């Protein structure tokens, strides 16, 4: 322990006794007065001449800051950085932003009040205050009221202070000596505390990062990634060929690919009936499909003469010949669907509706080269 005393304190049995003693000791002007009590005593601040706490203003300012920051952040994320239209609401929906703004305000304000009080105003935690190492501290935290005369600039008249305190009714007068730690806590200690907190945050952050990255890939969290069900292109031990994908069952018919049924070429003309009427839309569709698929061999006029005829050494049907003209719609449909001689089966390229439309177009082509007189305008 160091030599120079920092304070002289005395205990009083009640708050009233303390309050009575304060003015008596204060008028003697022996040093700064400080009181230690187990609970706040009304009127003590005034009696000791303490200034009111600035926490109120600090809290108000930080609360206002919190509100502003929250609103700005909400505006920036929702209306500026990545605006997403949600529920038809405006990007800057201030009405929806109020609750978070309020909560952040309270958060900032509350932490300023709490932590500000502890760290800034009371300079805690600090375990080296001299009073903590006196005999009186036991009574102070229980039911004793202490009044201390503190040294000013290291100078303290111990005898005079002792006399003043005893005169005012104090008992168990004690001289207080400094402790190993500096009074008040020096800047190095504060810096060390801040660094410790920062280091703690960094460790926590790094741990969290790895936990967040690592944890989700462990089972059972990763169960959704590797599910029991089989997906296409996976292997499967259930089947001989080892594939999860199965071909469709024999006889499966794709939509729109309904088979024609047991129709022979000869009977097709009478069995298959054109369900479509020859409207402008149907003819337009028929023309479009004809010009995509049929024109290469059958030619634009449907006479079987086309540029490919020479190279291909085939003779596509001439629709204007008497044979083809005598065909019923169904016969033409049959030929398109099943193919004929060198012609492939076009059932895979044309839906039944499209085929019937093409048939209508062929009829139009036929009529175009052999129009009766009534057709002329």
């Amino acid at each position, binding site marked *: 322990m160091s030599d120079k005393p920092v304070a002289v304190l005395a205990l009083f049995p*009640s*708050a*009233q006794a303390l309050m009575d003693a304060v003015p008596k000791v204060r008028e003697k002007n022996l040093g700064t007065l*400080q*009181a*230690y*009590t*187990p*609970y*706040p*005593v*009304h*009127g*003590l*601040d005034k009696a000791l001449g*303490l200034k*009111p*706490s600035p*926490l*109120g203003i600090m*809290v108000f300012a930080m609360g206002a800051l919190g509100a502003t920051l929250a609103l700005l952040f909400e505006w920036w*994320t*929702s209306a500026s*950085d*990545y605006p*997403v239209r*949600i*529920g038809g*609401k405006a990007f800057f929906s201030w009405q*929806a*932003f109020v*609750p*978070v703004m*309020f*909560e*952040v305000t309270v*958060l900032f304000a*509350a*932490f300023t*009040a*709490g932590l500000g*009080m502890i760290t800034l*105003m009371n300079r*805690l*935690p*600090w*375990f*080296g*205050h001299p*009073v*903590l190492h006196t005999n009186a*501290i036991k009574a*102070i*935290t*229980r*039911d004793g009221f202490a009044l201390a005369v503190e040294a000013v600039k290291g100078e303290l008249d111990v005898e005079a202070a002792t006399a003043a305190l005893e005169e005012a009714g104090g008992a168990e007068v004690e001289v207080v000596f400094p402790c190993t730690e500096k009074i008040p806590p020096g800047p190095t200690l504060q810096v060390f505390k801040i660094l410790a907190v920062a280091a703690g945050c960094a460790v926590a952050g790094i741990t969290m990062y790895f936990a*967040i990255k690592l944890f*989700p890939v462990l089972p059972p*969290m990763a169960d*959704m990634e590797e599910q029991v069900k089989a997906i296409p292109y996976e292997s499967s031990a259930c089947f001989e060929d080892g594939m999860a994908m199965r071909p469709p069952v024999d006889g499966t018919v794709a939509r729109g690919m309904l088979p024609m049924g047991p129709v022979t070429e000869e009977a097709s003309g009478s069995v298959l009936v054109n369900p479509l009427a020859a409207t402008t839309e149907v003819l337009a569709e028929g023309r479009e499909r004809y010009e995509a698929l049929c024109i290469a061999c059958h030619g634009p006029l449907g006479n079987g003469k086309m540029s490919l005829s020479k190279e291909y050494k085939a003779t596509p049907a001439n629709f204007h010949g008497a044979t083809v003209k005598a065909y019923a719609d169904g016969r033409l449909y049959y030929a398109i669907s099943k193919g004929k001689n060198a012609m492939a089966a076009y059932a895979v390229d044309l839906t039944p509706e499209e085929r019937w439309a093409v048939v209508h177009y062929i009829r139009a082509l036929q009529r175009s080269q052999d129009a009766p007189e009534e057709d002329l305008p």
Partner: protein
Amino acid sequence: MADNEALRDLLPPPLVEGDVTPGLLDDQVLETPEQKPPKAWFLAFFVTSGMFLIGAALIGYTFATGVGVWGNNSPVFWGFPIVNFVFWVGIGHAGTLISAILFLFRKRWRNAIARFAEAMTLFALMCAAIFPLIHVGRPWFAFWLFPYPNERALWVNFRSPLLWDVFAVNTYFAVSALFWFLGMVPDLASMRERTKSKFRKLLYTIGSLGWRGSANDWKHFEMAYLLLAGLATGLVLSVHSVVSFDFAVSLVPGWHMTIFPPYFVTGAIFAGFAMVVLVLVPVRKIMGFSHLITDHHLDVMNKVILAMACLMGYSYFMEGYTAWYSQNPYIHHIFTKYVTGTYGWAGILTLTCNVLIPQLLWFPKLRKSIPVMIFVALSVTVGMWFERFVIFLVSLHQDFLPSSWGLYIPTSVDVGILLGSFGLFFTLVLLFARMLPVISTTEVKMDLKGAQPHHGEEAHE
């Protein structure tokens, strides 16, 4: 003299019974953490932690297997977890009301119960927080709820009340914890000086942050306490209102009722006070604090429960009235479903438990009877759980399109997890009761006889 007698009758009874000095108070309250708990405590702890472990195991089972083990299904996509969440958050509000709002009103009777009530708030919030966490499909991604810069270039949706919830409940927990801890610092200082165990002395030294009770310290402390009380008051109103927004902003009939914010806050205070009564009645008896947590305390808390029951009755009446007044067939249908049909029993139970049974508290004799008190408090707890059940789940099961209607059938896993949450709550309460000062000796000392200068008599109310 007749006058003095009349005056005595009109004034509330003293806050503390018998001759209690600050030293005696310390000896009674602060000695508990130093002593070994009695056998009964261990038995209770065994039971509650057993309940908790069952719940925890079932949660593990849910994680491993999937949310399908619960009753959630179409159309009731939100099941027990949301009911439990709102239930527990609600219970937390009483603690803050007692420690913050009653402080602002200078109601001194709150001093003896504030510490315990505030601790219950924290424990209730811990129980509540479990449910949003587990009811999402992938809880390990829960951190996505926070707006941090990420490689998905996405921000959270600030227009969603579910996100407002995240901010509100987290803020509430943080501020409550801060308020509770700071209030305890002077008490921990007392314990630091009393304890004979070296290990505990170290713990209390760190916990009390080196508190020494100087007038300067108290000056800032009182200011911070007042400010925190004011801020926590704002939180009491806002947090459960934000929770109510989860439902009220939607279009679901029965959910989109503008009265939800104050109605939920009232319900929260209601349920919370019932839980405080339920816990404090055995605690004060077992720990021998009946002279500190007096019959008057219980009487006033019961009056608060009664007042809240009347406000709940008003809210139910307004909802029913609006269901008719709006002439909206969907709202009308849902309200009839609250009291008739498959779940009609739940609605009737809610009304009985929340409005009818608490009316017993009008009668002073019944209000002062411990069995009646416990019965009413239990009934309120059950009633408030079922109220959330009725509002959330019954509204979902038959909303607009009849082809979507369907029943909600909870599973044993649902019930087991709810049981587990009660287990967690009471385990924490038991631990708190043995390890920390359950009564704020500092605050009670402030109002004892002769505690303050120039005020010879004890403080009242």
